[in-house]
Structure formats: structure tokens, C-alpha cells
């Protein structure tokens, strides 16, 4: 779960990382008075607080030189959509006198068996175009070694005073990541100010949602994420479903991330387009679990047909079949539903399906092909 820039910076500051002293203006707050009272030194940077990347290239960061201009710019940014969403807030910071921009990040990495630190002497919005950053594979957080990272940076960062500051910061960031269950902390740019001091000019912090049981902030972020969703989706998220909206018309209710993607791919192969990635396997395999999934897809005008594709191990198929029977009985929508259940106790499925006149396709290909056909007919 990605934190907004100002939230991430607050977390970093709490652990002693230098960040600019900023002021947050939330969308919908009485911002004009706030601005007038709070900002005295100019120029300032006004930064849209959004969860999607590429803000800088989309004009989401503006320089404001005089107080009079500030309200107009704040209003304009709060009214602009970035990556589909309007900002939750803007962050106003003193415009930094940056002498140099570097890049530093700490992230969870499978190859490193834990954390990896990445550093590039040149940061900024075009970081992806340049040579890949230097990589220090830390592994478990207590394995961070100042001297190992120094060896990694030896040849790529000639300014040794800066290098030492970067290493000390990397050590701090790895500690923060472990303490606060962050899977990524990216500082880009990491600014060298004119006095040589180091400052996190931007911050992208991603938290590990599964640490919600030991971190009240992460718990709160999960709740807030649900609150941001519309009612139908929220009910589905409450069932632990994993949902990603796509732009097709076949509503896919599936179990397991890999099988869901396999089904998506097969839909495309058959000339159809999935309306979503909706993995229901983490939640209850009962009526209670599937009800909100159907409610959401039934209520989505984009969805023309629903494909239920579940291949269960621990999930027992007679339970899923019984849940389907109940949901189908309750359901008002006339959208066609195609089933393909397989896995543990699948032999009990036909008997249950017979009771409500449903057909269980034996193979995924058949089910996908039927769904694509039905979607085409509905168009």
C-alpha cells in the first residue's frame, strides 16, 4: 500500500531523516485561509499528493514565487486528475536550492532474500532512462553493513563526504523499512543542498499490508483504502477479495492469482476481454463470500457475462457449488454466468448444479469459449 508523499515523509522524519518542512492542504479543507496563514517564505513547491507515478512529468509539481499566486495554483492542482484520480491533498514546501540530485531506495527483493539498497549518483524524473542504479543486496535487515555498501559505492560515487552521508541514510532506511514494515522506500531525488546537507526531496513509501496486525498505521491505511472504494467494491474487499479493474466485458470470478491470470490470458486468446481480476480465494468460500463479488459485477454496466473459474485444493468444490446455488437463487440480474469448477471433491458438483440447472464445464477452454461467445452476443 503506497503512502502519499507527505505521509511517507512524516514517517521518514520520525526516524530522523531530513525532509523539507512542508504544509499539507487537504482537498475540501478551507484551504484559502490555511494558505494565507501558513506560508510566508517564497518561492515554494506545490506538489499534488497522488498514489500514481509520473506526477512530475504530468505537471503535478509547480513552483510558486509570490503569495498571491498560491491559491490559484493549489486550486488548479486539486482539480486536476493524475493517473485517473484527483489528488487527496497538495503539499507546499520551500523550493529547495538543490545542487545535485541522486537516487536512493530500499526495497524487498527476492534475489536478495530480503532488502536491497539501490543508489544512483544521478536521480530525478528520468532515472529509468539512465544506467541501472548500483545494487547492494542486504538480505535480512540486520545484515546491513556500512563497509559493504561503501565497497559497492566506491567506484560510482567519487565525492566521499556525500558517499558517507548516503551510506548513513541507507542504513537508516533499512532500519525504518524493517521497523515499520515497508516493502519500498524510494527517495528520488535525494537532494544535495547548497550547504552540502542531504535532504529527501521526494519520498515513495510502500507498506506491507500483511503487517496490519502489528502496525496501527497500516491497519488504518487498509481501512481508508476500503473507505475510498465504492460500496459494492467495499463489500467485496471486506471478504478479502483481490480486485483489479480492467477494461473488458467478461466479469471473472476466480480463485488463486495464477489461475485468475491464466483465465484472463485465455479470454484474450479467445478474442474476449476480461472486465477484472477478481481473486476470491483468500475469503470464505461460502455464500457470504461470493455474494458481494456477484453484486459488484452484476452492478457494473461494463460487465456482460460472468465467468466463475475455481480450481480448489483446500477450497472444497461441493461448498463452492452450494454457495453458487444459493447466490443464483437470490440474484436479480439476468447476466449469464458460465461455470468451471475443478479440484477437491469436484465429483459432487454435478449433483448440486443439477438442482438449479447449471452446467459445469470440465475444461477451462470450454468455459472461456462459452463466456466469450455470450459476451459477443450481448454486445
Amino acid at each position, binding site marked *: 500500500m503506497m503512502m502519499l508523499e507527505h505521509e511517507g515523509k512524516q514517517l521518514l522524519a520520525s526516524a530522523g531523516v531530513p525532509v523539507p518542512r512542508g504544509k499539507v492542504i487537504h482537498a475540501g479543507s478551507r484551504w484559502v485561509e490555511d494558505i494565507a496563514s501558513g506560508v510566508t517564505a517564497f518561492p515554494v513547491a506545490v506538489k499534488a499528493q497522488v498514489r500514481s507515478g509520473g506526477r512530475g512529468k504530468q505537471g503535478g509539481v509547480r513552483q510558486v514565487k509570490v503569495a498571491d499566486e498560491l491559491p490559484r495554483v493549489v486550486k488548479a492542482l486539486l482539480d486536476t486528475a493524475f493517473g485517473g484520480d484527483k489528488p487527496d491533498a497538495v503539499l507546499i514546501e520551500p523550493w529547495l536550492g538543490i545542487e545535485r540530485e541522486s537516487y536512493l531506495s530500499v526495497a524487498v527483493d527476492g534475489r536478495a532474500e530480503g532488502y536491497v539498497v539501490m543508489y544512483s549518483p544521478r536521480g530525478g524524473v528520468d532515472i529509468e532512462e539512465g544506467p541501472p542504479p548500483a545494487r547492494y543486496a542486504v538480505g535480512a*535487515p540486520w545484515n546491513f553493513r556500512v563497509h559493504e555498501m561503501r565497497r559497492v559505492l566506491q567506484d560510482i560515487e567519487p565525492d566521499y563526504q556525500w558517499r558517507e552521508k548516503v551510506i548513513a541514510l541507507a542504513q537508516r532506511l533499512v532500519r525504518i523499512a*524493517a521497523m515499520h514494515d515497508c516493502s519500498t522506500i524510494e527517495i528520488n531525488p535525494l537532494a544535495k543542498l547548497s550547504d552540502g546537507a542531504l535532504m529527501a526531496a521526494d519520498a515513495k513509501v510502500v507498506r506491507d499490508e*500483511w*503487517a496490519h496486525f*502489528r502496525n496501527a498505521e497500516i491497519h488504518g491505511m487498509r481501512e481508508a483504502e476500503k473507505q475510498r472504494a465504492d460500496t459494492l467494491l467495499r463489500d467485496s474487499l471486506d471478504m478479502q477479495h483481490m480486485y*483489479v479493474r480492467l477494461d473488458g466485458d467478461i466479469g471473472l470470478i476466480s480463485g488463486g492469482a495464477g489461475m485468475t*491470470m491464466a483465465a484472463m490470458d485465455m479470454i484474450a486468446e479467445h478474442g474476449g476481454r476480461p472486465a477484472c481480476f477478481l481473486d476470491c480465494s483468500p475469503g470464505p468460500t461460502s455464500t457470504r463470500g461470493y455474494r458481494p463479488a456477484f453484486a459488484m459485477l452484476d452492478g457494473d454496466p461494463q460487465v456482460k457475462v460472468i465467468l466463475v473459474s475455481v*480450481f480448489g485444493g483446500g477450497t472444497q468444490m461441493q461448498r463452492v457449488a452450494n454457495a453458487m446455488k444459493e447466490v443464483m437463487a437470490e440474484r436479480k440480474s439476468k447476466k449469464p454466468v458460465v461455470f468451471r469448477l475443478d479440484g477437491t471433491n469436484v465429483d459432487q458438483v454435478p449433483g448440486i448444479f443439477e438442482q438449479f440447472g447449471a452446467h459445469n464445464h470440465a475444461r477451462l477452454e470450454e468455459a472461456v469459449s462459452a463466456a466469450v461467445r455470450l459476451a459477443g452476443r450481448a454486445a
Partner: protein
Amino acid sequence: MSILLDRTNRVLIQGATGQMGTFFVEDARKYGTKIVAGVSPGREGTTVGGDVPVFASVRTAREETGADSAIVFVPPAAVLGATIEAIEAGCRLVVATADELPVLDTIEIRAAARANGTAFVGPNSPGIISPGKAKLGFMPSFCYKEGNVGVISRSGSLSYEGSKRLTVAGIGQSTVIGIGGDPVKGTTAAEALELFHNDPETSAVLYLGEIGGSEEVFVAEYASRAGAKPVAALIVGQTAPPGKKMGHAAALIGSKAEGHQAKIAMLREAGVHIANGVGEVVSATRAALASHAKATAAA
């Protein structure tokens, strides 16, 4: 033969008295798995599955029953403590199927497993099965058949689907291992490949991967190696949009290299037999087996 799991493993279950533990005891024993002990602190002295004795600690369970492998069914917050107990008590194989485990906990468990020479499978994985011998996980038994293809999968249900397709086509499996959908893994694809490489019964490997992460780099590295066993691979997520987490924490395209196209290109370059979609899993595996037969004949 097979990897990590065969008829000799003596299995203990942590969290044996819960719903999942109870289901597993019955299902796994039916398959032939030797379940010798349960561990449930406070419930020591009782039994599960009729006659499997329950102990207060892994150490006692090992001492009393000779258990040498563990499967863990406890809530996410308790997985760290339970797996490390099994690892430090000297189990040779520890399987944790749990999802929703903080990645930091996986990092700690992996470090402990390494330090103790334990094979750790999971988390967020269906477990491991050596068809015809034993299973440590929830996979539906009827999907598998003993044979000579090693299967490695990042996804649970996809491994059932893939294995069933092989089985139906008459292609058996030596071992099917779910390495899990999290970014840090108890057993990586690289480690699983190495185990299959050294298993005389395995002739070829089927790798079931997905977009996101860098696990497939290992697969390509292995496949390019001189003397490698032939590898077939399916990468799902061709239609997944970048920047979105597709269920698994690791299934997120963060850079071009983590996308479907780049992975397929890299694997193809390394000589891997590519399945375009789950429908081609059997044909790609057949091709791998054929190339193994050819290599064996030539040798």
C-alpha cells in the same frame, strides 16, 4: 526418487487441532503421508485424526515420534514463531502454506532455515507433493500421477491445473513444489531447479511462473547452463496491466523486465520450451521431454 519429500518423511503438524490441521491429517494420510505427530501447546496428551499424538513442542514431538518434517497451520501472526521452532528443532523440511504473512517474517524464517540447513517451502504456497509417495499441502490428490517431470509453481491453483493437464495426458510428475506468490520465498525457483537437476528421476522441469519479480531470471540462468535438464515454462499475466498487484504480492509489473514479453523473450533465448497459455502446458512439456530423450540418446 523425488525432491525434499518421499515415503520416508515423518511429518508433524503444527496447529494440528485447528480446522485446516484436522482436514489435512485425514486427506494427507489417505494419500500415504506418514503423519506421526501434532504440536499444539496446551493440547498435549490429546490426539488428532484418531490416533496421532499431540505434543506441546516440536522438540518433544521429534523426540517421541522421530518426526523430521513439519507443516504449519497457524494464523499469520504465529507463523514466524512456529516455523522457527520447527527449524531450530532440526526438522529437515518445513512447509508453511499461510498467505498474508508479513514479508519481514519470511525474511527471518528464510535466514533461520539457511542457518540450520532446513528446506523451507512457502509461504503463500499450496505446499509440496511427490505423487504416489506423500503430500504436504492442500493440493487435490487426483490431479497428480507419479512420473519424471518436476513442476515448480509460483501459484497454487495454477499448479493444480497444470499438473492435472499433465496427468490427463499421461505425463507423471516426480515432485510438484509450490514456491509461493510472495517476493521472498522459502525455496526459490533457483533452489528448486538445483534439486530437480540432482534428482535422477526427474527428466524435465515444468515452470509455472507469472509477471512481476525476478524469479524467471533464475530459470533462464539454469536453462542456459551446460548439461541442464530441459525446461518448459508458462508465464501467466500477459493481459495484466503494469503497476497493479495481481493478487500475489510479487505479481506486479514494476519495470519492463518484469513484464510478460520480456520474460518470455529471456526464457526463449535461454532455450526454454514456452507454453503460450495454459492450453499449451502439455505440448511444451512434451517438447522438453523429447529434447531430454534426444540428449540421453546422444550421450
